[in-house]
């Protein structure tokens, strides 16, 4: 009896259909999600005892319901917010010999702006009717101001931008030793320009808190 030893080939013609079916299933059930954003830490619920802060150390930014920006009681366009914040933070008004003297500041050392970056507080206040998109824009500009100053100092001290340092630090491929070294550097930069952004609920509250 003649036997056919060859195994008959499986017809793969419908493979494409099966693959298409799977493809369409994945197209329908999944989304391309964004997982980036601005990180913030909210203040704890228990009210901290009011700290005495001099008015010159507060940079008041408020957003009204028409999405207009009021910075230190003057209307300002959103484009100028970043440079104004940098000027305020980097002012370094404390005189030489004072405990708060800031030797790395490059501002004009005016008596009417912050003593040192460590003391400077940015107070952000937004109306309930303000648009979220504009609020994010303001937050973004304020963060950009801090990042620019931090990067400047990081370049000067370590020849590496602040954002690059953070990127390497959060990269899971970086080994532990490099990480701990970087952490010390990042912390040093952060203490030079600590991000102190206060979002008090109301204007009245803020005045009560800081005067």
């Amino acid at each position, binding site marked *: 009896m003649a036997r056919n030893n060859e195994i008959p080939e499986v017809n*793969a013609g419908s*493979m*494409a259909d*099966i*693959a*298409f079916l*799977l*493809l369409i299933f*994945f*197209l329908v*059930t*999944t*989304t*391309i*999600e*964004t*997982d*980036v*954003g*601005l*990180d*913030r*830490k*909210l*203040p*704890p*619920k228990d009210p901290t005892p009011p700290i005495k802060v001099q008015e010159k150390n507060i940079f008041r930014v408020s*957003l009204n319901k028409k*999405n207009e920006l009021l910075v230190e009681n003057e209307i300002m366009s*959103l*484009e100028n917010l970043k440079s104004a914040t940098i000027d305020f933070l980097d002012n370094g008004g404390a005189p030489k010999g004072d405990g708060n003297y800031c030797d790395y500041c490059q501002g004009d050392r005016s008596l009417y702006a912050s003593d040192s970056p460590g003391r400077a507080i940015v107070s952000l206040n*937004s*109306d*309930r*009717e*303000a*648009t*979220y*998109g*504009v*609020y*994010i*824009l303001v*937050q*973004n*500009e304020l*963060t*950009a101001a801090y*990042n620019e100053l931090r990067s400047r100092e990081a370049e000067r001290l370590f020849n590496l931008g602040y954002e690059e340092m*953070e990127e390497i630090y*959060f990269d899971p491929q970086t080994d532990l030793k490099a990480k701990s070294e970087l952490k010390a550097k990042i912390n040093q930069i952060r203490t030079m320009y600590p991000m102190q952004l206060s979002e008090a*609920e109301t204007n009245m509250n803020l005045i009560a808190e800081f005067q």
Partner: protein
Amino acid sequence: MSKFAKKKDGDLPAVSTASLPDIVFMLLFFFMTVTTMKDSSLLVENTLPNATEIKKLEKKDRVIYIYVGKPTREYQKVFGTEPKIQLNDKYASVDEVGSYILAERAKKPQEIQNVLTTALKVDKDANMGLIADIKQQLREVNALKVNYTTYEGNAFNNLQ
């Protein structure tokens, strides 16, 4: 003579479709790797704002999502056009945010319960009042790490 025999008919040879499955599989794997499963369908419009100074949200399992925006068109007849909060698969009021966070936190393994981040996915046209209320609720339940989820892009596009 046969060397010059006329080719039969004028038919074009059929294009081989043997590599079609390979191409489709390639597409399939592409989509499988770059997308993530939807965990809830959106009931609110969700055009996120743009920002440049962004950080990546690491570790998906440590994130709790809150969606805010005005109801999508099909629900506008019932719920109006005022921005609403969406938790999981339904609309919620501001007071429910706190208990939602606590419930979600209880679902997570113990060791990551105090390193959770709340991602606020808010439509850029929502108003700040609602966000302030949500933030107040988050403070009540001590969920202090928040992430304002955005797209990467020029932040001045938010003005339009």
